[in-house]
């Protein structure tokens, strides 16, 4: 039986029914009782936290140090590990007409790093769902992906095609909600899973299989033009992404997350609450800086720069940018999200190596 590619969207009615019905189940307690309830909770939590802290400290002093570290505390820094990017490993040699590659995103903090490449029809918004369909080639480790569906031969390897359902006349059957998809999944070698997926483009089965069968080994890399020379030692490089549609419109980004969230905070203010979510750091290069104009003029290793601090009203997290002119004709930006010490951001900027512009040759092709 051919598996329906829209199966994943069959869960939407259940989710939407829950969204409509579940809120009515919960009755808010009187406002005046919140404070008393809060006091009880705080007492209870303090007792449990104390007990849990004892357990953690007993198990491992090293682990306790990691768990008890908190954003905002002075943190020893270290030389950041090399960021040389991620190998593409496989690339298609044929892409359906009209599609252009607009993004390459590597997720590095997993047991098996993944790479997602995206093609769209207009190139302007690689992430659009409702208006712009997209075609993605996902490269995963061997344990990823559900390998089921219609068995197909992909260059001598067993693959599975999951297609959009067809009506009697071959026309596509409307699905629930946006996002129709089909996919091909196969293992080009014993350690790698490739998933080619179409969302909203409604590509014919023949095109999906032709593109999958055109995939060949590729020694190319999603190489980073940026190398952090200093980084607080609990920041982990998680994403490496290049997005754009032409040599005039692109952005390369590295994203780091703090490894461990904090244990405790101050009492009840937004600043303390924001600390719970840890720190995020982004390094950018591209024709347009992510920061607003203005800010304080500074110098970074003698280069003109500006420090822009802003606050997201809807989301109480501080955002600060250090925008540096390296003389490349495109700005480089260090962005800290969360309660960053601005001096740390400047230090990261001072130790940042810029190797030039990223590879722009594949953008929009």
């Amino acid at each position, binding site marked *: 039986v051919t598996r329906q590619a829209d199966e*994943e*969207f069959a869960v939407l009615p259940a989710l939407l029914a829950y969204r409509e019905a579940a809120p009515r189940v919960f009755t808010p307690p009187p406002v005046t009782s919140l404070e008393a309830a809060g006091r009880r909770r705080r007492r209870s939590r303090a007792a449990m936290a104390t007990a849990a802290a004892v357990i953690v400290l007993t198990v491992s002093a090293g682990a306790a140090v990691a768990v008890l570290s908190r954003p905002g505390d002075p943190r020893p820094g270290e030389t950041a590990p090399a960021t040389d990017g991620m190998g593409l490993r496989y690339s298609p040699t044929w892409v359906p007409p009209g599609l252009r590659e607009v993004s390459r995103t590597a997720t590095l903090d997993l047991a098996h790093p993944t790479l997602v490449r995206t093609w769209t029809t207009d190139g302007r918004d690689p992430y659009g769902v409702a208006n712009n369909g997209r075609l993605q080639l996902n490269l995963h480790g061997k344990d990823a992906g559900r390998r089921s569906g219609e068995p197909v031969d992909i260059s001598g390897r067993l693959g599975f095609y999951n297609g959009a359902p067809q009506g009697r006349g071959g026309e596509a059957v409307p699905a629930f909600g946006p996002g129709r998809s089909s996919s091909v999944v196969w293992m080009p070698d014993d350690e790698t899973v490739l998933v080619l997926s179409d969302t909203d483009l409604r590509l014919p089965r023949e095109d999906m299989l032709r593109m999958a069968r055109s995939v060949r080994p590729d020694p190319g890399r999603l190489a980073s033009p940026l190398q952090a020379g200093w980084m607080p030692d609990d920041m982990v490089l998680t994403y490496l992404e290049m997005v754009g549609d032409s040599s005039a419109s692109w952005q390369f980004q590295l994203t780091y997350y703090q490894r461990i969230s904090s244990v405790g905070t101050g009492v009840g*203010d937004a600043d303390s609450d924001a600390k719970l979510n840890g720190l995020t750091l982004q390094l950018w290069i591209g024709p347009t800086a992510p920061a607003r104009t203005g800010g304080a003029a500074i110098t970074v290793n003698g280069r003109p720069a500006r420090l822009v601090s802003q606050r997201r009203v809807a989301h109480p997290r501080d955002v600060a940018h250090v925008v540096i002119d390296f003389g490349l004709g495109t700005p480089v930006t260090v962005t800290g999200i969360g309660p960053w010490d601005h001096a740390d951001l400047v230090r990261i900027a001072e130790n940042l190596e810029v190797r030039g512009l990223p590879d722009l040759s594949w953008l929009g092709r």
Partner: protein
Amino acid sequence: MEPPASAPRTRERAAAMEMDDAPAVDDGYAEFYQASYGRLAAALTAYLGDAAEAEDVVQEAFLRAWQGWRRIAGYEEPVAWVRRVAWNLATNRWRRLITEARMRLRMRSNQADVVAALGPDSVALVAALRQLPARHRQVIVLHYVADLPVADIAADLSVPRGTVLSWLHRGRTRLAGLLGEDESPPSRPGPTTEGGDES
């Protein structure tokens, strides 16, 4: 959350300071609270898989909003502030350690109440959600239950929009498999910890 035990400010004094800052109840807070509570509690229940724990974090978040209401009422979206605090509380690693221990104790006694209140379909959905990786579960709940656009979730989580879409896709697919395997709730529900394959 509590300050460290060694902090010079005692808990009692801190609580008193909070009370001094608390506004009158009739300056728009009550209406905001009544209108927002259920949806937030439902979303956090879907995320945590435990209604009592969800109400605990939501009430804590609303308490903090009450204490800072003069400031928060001026925000463009006060409910976004409360949602952020509630999710921070729910996703806090330290809290998770405590929560899991609590839930093990609570599981049997609460299950009947949850089923009665939410209905078996919702319980099956919540149980299936709990088997998703945390990030997938979070974006599924934020998008489909809390009704947040993908762009807002991406900004909130500080990840690229494409990542949110990828997590949504993977979450939906996994959820479809879980709900399609059996009409009954999974036999061994349990939250998936961070660090799995969540691409």
